[in-house]
């Protein structure tokens, strides 16, 4: 095409998309501690919305998926089903110790974690609970990974 116009348009779309990250939050049996901190990261004091983040209600609109909780028996199938609905490319971020290891619940009959048994985890944020700044750092790291993923899809 003339002057590589199609490539330039794709680049411009990618650039715009990297500044508009829609978050989707899945609670896989969390105690609500990490959920509160995710919401706190969106408040004016920490303001993840500066990075273009917006909490969305549908997995089909998500760019970054935040998972909290140790993946309970009841939430396992729902987690897998919800993650299957997220369009590629997306970034999976685990918030807190629970989705990484099971934390104090590990070894329980009702825990099917960690999350990386089911899906590739891009970024983990450790802490019980992590501070909103740490969640922000995780989101920023995920944004960089997502940009690479998007570039890789076009090549």
């Amino acid at each position, binding site marked *: 095409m003339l002057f590589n116009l199609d490539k330039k348009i794709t680049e411009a779309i990618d650039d715009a998309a990297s500044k508009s990250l829609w978050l989707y939050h899945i609670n896989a049996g969390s105690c609500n501690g990490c959920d509160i901190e995710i919401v706190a990261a969106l408040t*004016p*004091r*920490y*303001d993840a919305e*500066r*990075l273009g983040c917006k909490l969305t209600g549908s997995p089909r609109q998500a760019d970054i998926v935040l998972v909290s909780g140790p993946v309970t028996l009841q939430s396992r199938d729902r987690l897998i089903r919800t993650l299957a609905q997220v369009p590629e490319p997306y970034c999976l971020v685990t918030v807190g*110790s629970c989705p*990484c*290891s*099971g*934390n*104090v619940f*590990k070894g329980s009959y009702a825990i099917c974690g960690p999350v990386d048994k089911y899906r590739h985890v*891009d*970024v*983990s*944020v*450790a*802490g*019980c609970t*992590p*501070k909103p*700044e*740490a969640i*922000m*750092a*995780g989101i*920023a*790291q995920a944004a960089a*990974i997502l940009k690479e993923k998007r570039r890789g899809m076009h090549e």
Partner: protein
Amino acid sequence: MAKLPYLGTALTNLFRKPVTIAFPAGEAPAAQPAYRGRIAFDASKCINCGMCERVCAPSCMTRVAKPLEGGEPGDQEITFTFDMTSCTFCGMCADFCAKKAITLTEDYMMTGIIAEDFLVTGKVIKKAPPKPKFTPEQLAAMKAAAEAKKKAAEAAKAAAQQA
């Protein structure tokens, strides 16, 4: 001013600094004092009592012992590994550590891509206890010899009294 009740607040807000922390752009703010963050392990203070492992609710630490290379037989190299993705940051390990080898730092920025980003490790060298001077057989033989000597002395004493 009764018609414009918020004018004062609105005007002062124009000249106030934003409350938003500049973090991903600037430096991360420090945590409050006594915040319980990433574990720091000082292996030189550790005496390998294993108390931290006992009190840890999520059992986030592992202890692996292997023979020390280039050491005397029986010497062990013990590797402590604290997994920060498994920790609840309750601080029990630090409270129970008799030698204060474990401390919880104020570093809360724990994000990573691979599991190794979250591990805190330390190596402790455990020396084998000193060897005893005599073996049990040698000790038994020495005891028997001492008793025989005592008996002989008593027999000689009795013979001298009779004579």
